[in-house]
């Protein structure tokens, strides 16, 4: 039995990630120690309608697997993960979301938890857009991230530099406020930040490392996907 409020749930939304999922799961430490406090980690993979062996591989690697019957999108999968965190009674203190394609260094999960504990943060976003990282980010990604951050600032008043980062930490206390987002696709990153802004929840940023795989680059990077995100954000802004 886990101690009350001493567990970190790592949520990994995954679509056809059989090549990386086992490595991502196994690289996450089973305990995280911060300022004499020890947090156990639990991993929940949200298999978003994968057609490959993502779910089987994740289960074999020891993760909790929540399977979507059909693909909903990164936002839909993340929302399922957050709602699971609300209902699972695992004694959670924090929920960390991380991409399933291996683009995030799992050391950063520990850094995020450590930062949150030391600064009593409730919402921490891993910032990929810092000087040390800029050379390793492909130009298309830089453009998409820059565009999304600009739109978020103009439409929603969000001051976070990297609005599209998948590596985030949420205190369990704020999840009911944050998990109410409506967008199923990539626009959810901005929408969650907007919910935080409206609820006056302070959003902190922590510089993180990033590396891109070919598969990761292919996801959500077409011009049409970007247009879809823009359309979704406009709709959310108008209709609330």
């Amino acid at each position: 039995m886990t101690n009350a409020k001493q567990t970190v749930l790592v949520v990994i939304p995954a679509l056809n990630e059989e090549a990386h999922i086992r490595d991502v799961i196994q690289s996450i430490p089973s305990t995280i120690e911060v300022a004499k406090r020890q947090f156990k980690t639990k991993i929940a993979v949200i298999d978003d309608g994968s057609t490959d062996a993502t779910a089987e591989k994740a289960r074999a690697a020891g993760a909790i697997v929540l399977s979507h019957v059909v693909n909903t999108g990164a936002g839909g999968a993340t929302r399922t993960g957050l709602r699971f965190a609300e209902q699972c009674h695992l004694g959670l203190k924090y929920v960390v979301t991380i991409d399933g394609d291996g683009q995030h260094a799992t050391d950063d999960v520990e850094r995020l938890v450590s930062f949150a504990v030391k600064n009593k943060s409730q919402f921490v976003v891993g910032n990929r857009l810092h000087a040390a990282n800029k050379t390793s980010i492909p130009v298309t990604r830089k453009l998409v991230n820059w565009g999304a951050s600009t739109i978020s600032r103009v439409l929603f008043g969000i001051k976070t530099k990297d609005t599209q980062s998948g590596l985030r930490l949420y205190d369990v206390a704020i999840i009911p406020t944050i998990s109410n987002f409506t967008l199923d696709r990539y626009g959810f990153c901005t929408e969650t930040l907007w919910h935080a802004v409206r609820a006056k929840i302070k959003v902190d940023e922590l510089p993180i490392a990033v590396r891109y795989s070919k598969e990761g680059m292919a996801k959500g990077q077409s011009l049409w996907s970007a247009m879809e995100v823009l359309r979704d954000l406009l709709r959310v802004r108008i209709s609330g």
Partner: protein
Amino acid sequence: MSKYLLLVLINAPIVLVGIIRAVTRYKTKPSRISKSKCITEVVFWLTIGVGLSFVEPIYNTLIQHNLTDSPPMSLFDVALLTLFVFALLLIVETNEELTALKRTVTRIHEKLAIVDEIEQIAKKRTK
């Protein structure tokens, strides 16, 4: 009867239905739409209502300034415009129904995934 007045009289109920439906969707507990969406819809229908009420003065102004040479409105135009406004009402209603349906399906989908896994965790604990 003036065709412009006829246009307003026929379309007023449609515009009213649009406004009432928007307010009802917001006021029903639990609200099916947000406050800002309700305001957007009400403003949308009011704009149409006000636009229709001012068709005659707008037409007269355009004629006076030689900005149009189209003939005055016919009964066919009245019918066509009414059909267009009615189609707008149907589009808004269908969109709302689809959004509500999508929300329900998403909730069921989420619940299925979560309940299934929580049951498995509980089974493992009892073993």
